[in-house]
């Protein structure tokens, strides 16, 4: 890395350092969760026990409980834990920060990453040219085996891109497993899928580290308007949904160019209003016109946001009934973003998605309404919306308990966390996530990965889940070590009880428990074998697929 890029990297790191943001709603009261749980109870579904509440909140607000987390919550209280997690800027996260220091793409500026790809591409082109010249030379033996093999140059730019994505995936797993800022990372994953960008498009692999660390993470628990604006300005999104090339049509211009509606449509449908949010095809076109000129310096060399007036449509536009007068420049699109941020459909859409992530696949309408009201009252303050969820009876009802099927990322991270796995090679975990059906940074459509149970329950994916559990328990995932010594002590009953408690499987059905116990009784009574089998069988059991 050259001096200049190093300097920029330092600036970037400084820019996203955390500044405590003032709370716009009061913190959760100490007894808020318990009070909500009491309200949620009915004669048919008794109030959650304290242990159930602790398990539930760790299942939802983190990537899954580590043994020590339970102790921490028992001591600190659920409300205090949630407030802590809602303010990640107020505590250090040293262990994971140290581990992330070796992930190169995180400390490289996007222009450096993009330029490396550019250089590789040039090299490849040159090699190709040289080989063509060589094979055309009369001295080369025609059709020699070596010659025809040489004609296929190594796909180096592709390898570099793959390396970038793998590094990012490793960082994602490291954070999911080891970061203390669990809720923040849950939200980064949530927003990444909400504002999905596919790593396979163009040079996105080089833009994604910056996208995640400057657009998403600093705003993950901030305000929705700030998040939306950061995404709208991000080179990653400008490239992914083609806005960087969208320009006012100029029929006689030498360069072909014209309006591209792709970003405008997804902005309305997926980022803000939702598909039934009350916009028309004409609105899509008008929004696209407002965003003309929002582009990147040069995607292959200097990928940063710029506004190019020569691409902008300076005509008058009408967006969702709002007149945007002729003559406006970069602010046309800013006006659009303001219109969308304050639109009731946006409040409702964001509220629905949050409730779906934290409560259930089909969240109850009253809950969604309350979260949407919080959005409106706080100008989209994400922390406040989460508080509304965390103090709701819906969240603390027995119905919500284990109502969600874990996504592949959640399953893998939760398993590693529960077993306190020591992760020397997070790539092995990332690959497992991919095998179970969620290749990281690999969702092609702008919808991102789904957040409903049905989507993750295919038979093939289920077998991959079981297989992951076996490989992890057996110690066959290279670079991921678990220590089961404390589990393997005592009779099969004792082993099973300890393994289940470690994995948070306190809601095992009698049948599952009985079946696994039988299996353990048939297994040689060696502590390590007993422990590995108990853990392997539990990780693959239906109960453990839920959170």
């Amino acid at each position, binding site marked *: 890395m050259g001096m200049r890029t190093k300097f920029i990297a330092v600036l970037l790191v400084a820019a996203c350092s955390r500044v405590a943001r003032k709370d716009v709603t009061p913190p959760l009261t100490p007894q808020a969760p318990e009070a909500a749980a009491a309200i949620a109870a009915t004669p048919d579904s008794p109030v959650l026990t304290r242990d159930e509440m602790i398990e539930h909140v760790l299942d939802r607000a983190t990537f899954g409980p580590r043994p020590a987390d339970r102790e921490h919550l028992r001591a600190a209280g659920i409300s205090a834990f949630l407030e802590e997690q809602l303010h990640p800027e107020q505590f250090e996260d040293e262990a994971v920060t140290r581990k992330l220091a070796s992930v190169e793409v995180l400390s490289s500026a996007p222009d450096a990453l993009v330029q490396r790809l550019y250089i590789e591409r040039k090299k490849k082109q040159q090699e190709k040219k040289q080989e063509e010249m060589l094979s055309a030379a009369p001295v080369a033996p025609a059709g020699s085996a070596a010659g025809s093999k040489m004609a296929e140059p190594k796909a180096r730019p592709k390898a570099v891109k793959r390396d970038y994505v793998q590094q990012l995936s490793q960082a994602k797993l490291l954070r999911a497993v080891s970061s203390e800022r669990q809720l923040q990372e849950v939200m980064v994953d949530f927003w990444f899928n909400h504002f999905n960008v596919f790593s396979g498009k163009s040079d996105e692999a080089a833009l994604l580290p910056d996208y995640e660390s400057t657009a998403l993470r600093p705003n993950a628990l901030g305000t929705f308007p700030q998040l939306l604006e950061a995404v709208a300005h991000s080179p990653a999104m400008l490239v992914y949904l083609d806005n960087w090339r969208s320009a006012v049509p100029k029929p006689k211009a030498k360069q072909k160019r014209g309006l591209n509606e792709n970003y405008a449509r997804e902005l309305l449908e997926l980022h803000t209003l939702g598909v039934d949010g009350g916009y028309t095809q004409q609105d899509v076109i008008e929004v696209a016109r407002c965003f003309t000129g929002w582009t990147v310096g040069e995607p292959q060399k200097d990928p940063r946001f710029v506004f190019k007036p020569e691409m902008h449509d300076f005509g008058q536009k009408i967006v969702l009934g709002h007149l945007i007068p002729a003559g406006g420049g970069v602010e046309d699109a800013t006006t659009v973003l303001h219109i969308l941020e304050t639109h009731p459909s946006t409040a409702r859409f964001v509220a629905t998605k949050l409730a779906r992530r934290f409560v259930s696949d089909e969240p109850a309408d009253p809950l969604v309404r309350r979260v949407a009201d919080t959005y409106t009252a706080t100008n989209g303050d994400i922390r406040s919306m989460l508080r509304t969820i965390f103090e709701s009876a819906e969240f603390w009802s027995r119905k919500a308990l284990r109502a969600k099927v874990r996504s592949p990322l959640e399953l893998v991270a939760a398993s590693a966390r529960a077993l306190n796995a020591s992760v020397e090679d997070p790539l092995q975990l990332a690959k497992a996530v991919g095998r179970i059906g969620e290749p990281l940074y690999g969702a092609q459509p702008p919808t991102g990965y789904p957040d409903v149970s049905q989507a993750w329950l295919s038979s093939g994916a289920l077998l991959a889940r079981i297989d992951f559990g076996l490989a992890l328990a*057996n110690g066959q995932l290279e670079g991921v070590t678990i220590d089961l010594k404390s589990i393997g002590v005592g009779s099969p009953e004792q082993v099973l009880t300890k393994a289940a408690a470690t994995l948070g499987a306190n809601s095992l059905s009698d049948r599952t428990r009985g079946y696994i116990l039988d299996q353990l009784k048939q297994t040689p009574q060696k502590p390590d074998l007993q422990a590995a089998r108990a853990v*392997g069988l539990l990780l693959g059991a239906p109960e453990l697929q839920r959170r």
Partner: protein
Amino acid sequence: MRCSRRGLLKGGALVAAGSFMPAFARRALAAQEVVAPRRKTLVFLFLRGALDGLHAVTPVDDPRFQQLRPQLALRPADLLDLCLPGFNLHPSLAGLLPLWKACSLAFVHAVGSPDPTRSHFDAQDYLELGTPGVKGTSDGWLARALGETEIDEPGPLDAVAVSPRLPRALQGADDALAFASLDQLRLHPLAGAPRGQKGRDQARAVFEGLYGALPDDEAVATSGRQAFAALDLLEKKLSSAAAKSTVEYPNGPIANSLKPLAQLIKGDVGLRVGCADAGGWDTHVAQAGTLNGNLKQLGDSLAAFMLDLGPRAEDVVLVAATEFGRTARQNGTGGTDHGHASVALVLGGGVQGGRIHGAFPGLRDDQLYEGRDLAVTTDLRSVLAAAAAAQLDATDLAELFPGFSGEPLAGLFT
């Protein structure tokens, strides 16, 4: 064009060979193979991202075409002759010409949805649910098609999607299996168990028992039970000689998802519905190059699939369709934007091939949908309904496509 299946056979190829196989040979094959009965199969290949139908099957005689796409339109001399007036084929689809000449391949042009949406996700949803404009439909159209006819011996591989997740079209089909590759289905042995096949079998048996012991109302357990039943059948059948392929497929996602389906069909596992996915059709920018590659993948993969099926091709119909078409005009970035009607490919046994079905509405401004896109003259549901009737005996249109007032496309199948 005049169609002759003999012409194809003379050409050294493939499709109708089954009907010429001596009866004793067929019986011998059957005796050796049958666990599940030989069934008809419907394969749906979803070209996700909105394929530009005008680029694939080009209306060469329409004077507007060149004007709408001054840079994008290929020169007529570079296109492939379909031996019919009006339309030529993109050169990258050359692999399909033998099937076309054998009348095993038909196109349906100006096909699409009556819904005006230009959102991929809505349009894909509508297509897969089979209810344009209605998002709340709880099951997919292929799931309903499967449910319409009772079959004698339902098995765990009646419906298979080669994809990491179950596609919406199959949601609601309780027995449908989705997997990205056969490797995805293998288990590690339990701790301390023997390595290799023996250990893997043991692990499978243990989990089969665990999932089998759980009640039916647990969705995860139900998925698990199906998975193990499917695995049993797969292992039994995929090792059979008939399932092995000697055909060379191109490298790429389309071929990778069609090849296992061919293996299953040839393995007589009872497959009734197969689903495959192929993305990459959303060509907003510089589409000529992208489509050169993608169409070649598509054509060569389909040709390899049909060749691989050999005599079983007679029992298979494959429909390849997309969620909507693209703008008739090229855009400012050498591509096309989201539009309306596109083209569908229908191939296999019983197809009235060598023809373009459906009416082409023309490209004048007053003929274009909203002044910009190819108009829809054939509802894709008519194509799907015809295929479902031919392959699955699913003929109750009200059940298959609630709210659809059209008919199965006449003349698409013999």
